[in-house]
């Protein structure tokens, strides 16, 4: 992990990072990744796992009648830093 890598992660994550901060973060990431890399030691015996014990599933709600169109629009749009009528306003993309 080096400064350049941190700066490119910043671009990927859409977070502006200053050079000196990237330098500092690169050293912290070295230490953190060294620690979390330990997980590779645990995966050898995955065959032992009984998948039945994994309790993660979705419970879906009824696909019923939706609320009336537009009744929440003002509440939501009023939070936006920039708006035009019923839309979020952003700088042009292209």
């Amino acid at each position: 992990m080096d400064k350049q890598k941190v700066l490119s992660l910043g671009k990927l994550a859409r977070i502006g990072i200053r050079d000196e901060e990237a330098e500092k973060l690169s050293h912290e990431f070295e230490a953190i990744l060294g620690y979390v890399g330990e997980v590779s030691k645990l995966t050898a015996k995955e065959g032992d796992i009984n998948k039945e014990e994994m309790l993660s599933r979705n419970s879906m709600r009824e696909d019923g009648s939706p609320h009336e169109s537009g009744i929440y629009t003002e509440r939501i749009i009023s939070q936006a830093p920039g708006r035009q009528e019923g839309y979020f306003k952003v700088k042009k993309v292209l």
Partner: protein
Amino acid sequence: MIDLSAISIKEARESLKNGEFSARELAEAALKTIEEKDPEIRAFLEVYDDVLSQADLADKKIKAGEDTPLLGIPVAIKDNMLLDGKRATAGSKILVGFIAPYNSTAVRKLLDAGAVIVGRTNMDEFAMGSSTENSAFGPTRNPSDTSRVPGGSSGGSAAAVAAGMVLGSLGSDTGGSIRQPAAHTGIVGMKPTYGRVSRSGLIAMASSLDQIGPLGKTILDAETLYEVIRGQDPMDSTTLPEGAYGEEKGFSKTIGVPREFVEAEGMDPAVKNNFGRVIEKFKSLGYKIKDIKTPSLPYALAVYYILMPAEVSSNLARFDGVKYGLRVEGENLLEEYLQTRGEGFGIEARRRILLGTYVLSSGYYDAYYGQALSAKRMITAELRKAFKDVDLMLTPTTAAPAFKIGEKTADPLSMYLEDLFTVPANIAGLPSISVPAGNVETDGKNLPVGILLTADLGKEDYLFRAGKEFSGEAL
């Protein structure tokens, strides 16, 4: 004036029903305590301006004979839970100015139960931290020693209860954020089973781990709050119906201690001695103590620091300067994203988003995220197997009492180690409670410590039962 630190929710409800005091008098006492103590403690980011009118409404209902579990009870909520029409910032600058457009399910359930919601409490930014020092609005101080942290990330919710400003509060727990501050402030904090409490309207951190739970002075207070907020919710597809957690096997008063895990790490000698006394006390209460072998537990924290940042990097993508909160103007849309997120997020949020982006990126995904998912399954399987022989697992909540403000801010990894004992319950989705276990002397100060009881999926009742017996509360 009513002393909130001296009464439980149950006692307050009795007094309200008997007319010994009114909900308004109780709320006034809460506000007065906040006015006196909070300039130093800083548990609250905001005390709502309608507290007394909420209390008056409760008094009307009490007069009309209504009897809901929290009617007239002053409680606080963590700043990452939405209350319709009120601000919520999750302790972050990026959400300054945001007004909740709807109620989170947990908070709506508090309101339905008659609670008087006093305000929103300080927290580490987006619940990332173990001390509240990562709050964009400054740290909360520990009521037991104001030079120390109250723990985190629900440090404001814990300090507000411990200082007698409210009778109970809600926190959220992704890796220990309810239980660790409860231990550091000498109160009870509980993380329910994953899927027990709806997260609808909770500002998400790591969605496979986050749970909302109660903080209170007594086990019964925590249980009362938990009973109010629990239940399946069509607005959170991960919530499960009653009976989803399998057969009741019956409580056999058997506690497993993962001795190797507990003793391997650098534990404060006073905490270690205290833990020995805790085990003896459980024995004297008729509990069988078994040594359990859990070789994968020491890896739980490493697993956590892969899965959590990965989910953080995805969940926090929504803060983009377009939909709500802060926008920093830039030349074009990309510049606005970079500047808004660069300036709006504090250092720990930035650190975790970048780390999560790294472990999910092409070429590293398998080595980190894939391995961590597989390790999560192993840890879960190992713990669930252990619960075939024991009702509960017991460890200290933290390896040491509360640390000094500033002590760990320079070294993120040392801060992360605060979650060592609490994280396994999040990884495996298990219910877990921190119970006060006396004080230890550190630097001439008497500081509270907690013990952590963890049970199999859906067995919250075991936590409450053992917690009550240990604390000498009526069953």
